[in-house]
């Protein structure tokens, strides 16, 4: 089963929830798809790390063959090519690697070259397999790295083991890519109006993808919780409530996995895991 953990903004607790759930599940796979700033590995401190480069294809021109016909320039809907002063210019960061220009060039003057955009790291932390995507600073899109992570996830999956996908924040393309193969989505939300607004954005996305889902309310204090109100109004299942405590904050700032060091949190996340399994069984039963 693949469980994606997402939220409408950064800092709500996606990593806290996904790291601790994977640690509570013991035998699990944790995938950090927040490739612009992956931080799950800081908690897991994985060992036996293997790295693999991820690259994309970029057109490359043989100036001796190019006749300046501009077929490629006219074709590219992202305008990644320009023909200036008898020379073809390729704007690598605008290119979406579709390969169309190479296919269409009547002179075969265009070919593809690899451009490295980041790496995927694999390691282990106790019984948790840890996969981390790291995008090079300045690159436009982390999606090729997420695709690679999710392909690798397919190879690593074992029977009954749970996979937790730590998503990038927000509800843009990069998040859609991260959740599209998930069996269940956990939305993490903060107890504020802003938090509830961000929750409503990811909720909309999840409905679009028709994913079974539930919410974890994080940083909970006594008093009004607009995110909880939003869940109640929309009939969204609240899977767990995590209190806002300095103890948890301290553990987190010291990059410790709460589940591995404190019984209170071991209980909290084991219970969340149980709720989750029950929810997912329920969903599977509904599907069949």
């Amino acid at each position: 089963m693949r469980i994606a953990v997402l939220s409408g903004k950064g800092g709500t607790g996606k990593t806290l929830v996904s790291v601790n759930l994977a640690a509570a599940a013991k035998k699990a796979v944790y995938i950090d798809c927040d490739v612009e700033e992956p931080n799950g590995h800081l908690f897991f401190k994985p060992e036996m790390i293997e790295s693999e480069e991820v690259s994309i294809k970029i057109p490359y021109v043989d100036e001796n063959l190019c006749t300046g016909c501009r077929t490629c320039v006219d074709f590219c809907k992202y305008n990644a090519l320009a023909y200036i002063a008898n020379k073809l210019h390729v704007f690598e960061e605008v290119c979406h690697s579709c390969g169309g220009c190479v296919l269409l060039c009547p002179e075969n003057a265009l070919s593809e070259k690899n451009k490295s955009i980041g790496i995927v790291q694999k390691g282990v932390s106790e019984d948790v397999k840890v996969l981390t995507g790291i995008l090079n600073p300045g690159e436009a899109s982390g999606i090729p790295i997420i695709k690679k992570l999710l392909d690798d996830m397919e190879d690593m999956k074992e029977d009954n083991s749970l996979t937790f996908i730590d998503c990038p924040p927000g509800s843009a393309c990069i998040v859609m890519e991260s959740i599209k193969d998930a069996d269940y989505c956990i939305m993490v939300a903060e107890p504020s109006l802003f938090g509830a607004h961000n929750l409503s954005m990811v909720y909309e996305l999840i409905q679009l993808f028709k994913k079974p889902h539930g919410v974890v309310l994080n940083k909970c204090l006594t008093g009004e919780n607009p995110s909880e109100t939003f869940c109640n109004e929309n009939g969204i299942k609240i899977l767990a409530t995590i209190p806002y405590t300095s103890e948890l904050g301290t553990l987190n700032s010291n990059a410790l996995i709460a589940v591995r060091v404190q019984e209170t949190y071991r209980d909290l996340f084991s219970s969340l895991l149980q709720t989750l399994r029950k929810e997912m069984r329920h969903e599977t039963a509904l599907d069949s």
Partner: protein
Amino acid sequence: MKIAIPMDDKTMEGDVCISFGRAPYFLFYDIETKDVVFIENSAATSQGGAGIKAAQMVVDNQVDALLTPRCGENAAEVLNAANVKIYKTSSASVQDNIAAFEEGTLPLLDEIHAGFHGHGGK
């Protein structure tokens, strides 16, 4: 000498557009013959790379200079490769800017912004 200016409307009374790549129109003006030509900017509705496509169009019209309030780095790369000089407009009025250009008081645009690309996603 021929110059190009991004425009909100296709009239000499219209305003200079604050965007280069996504300006609705371009004015091509010949300083010697006073010829005025307005061309619709097909790059304005591009999914991405509007600056590159708009700059390609400016270059294809064989202008010597572009008068614009702003210009992104990709567009500037195209314009520089074609030796098109980029000047900074000083007001919204086309006429004032052309006059200032002819007097030689319009400064070169020295601030090229990093652009807004990469936000469209894939």
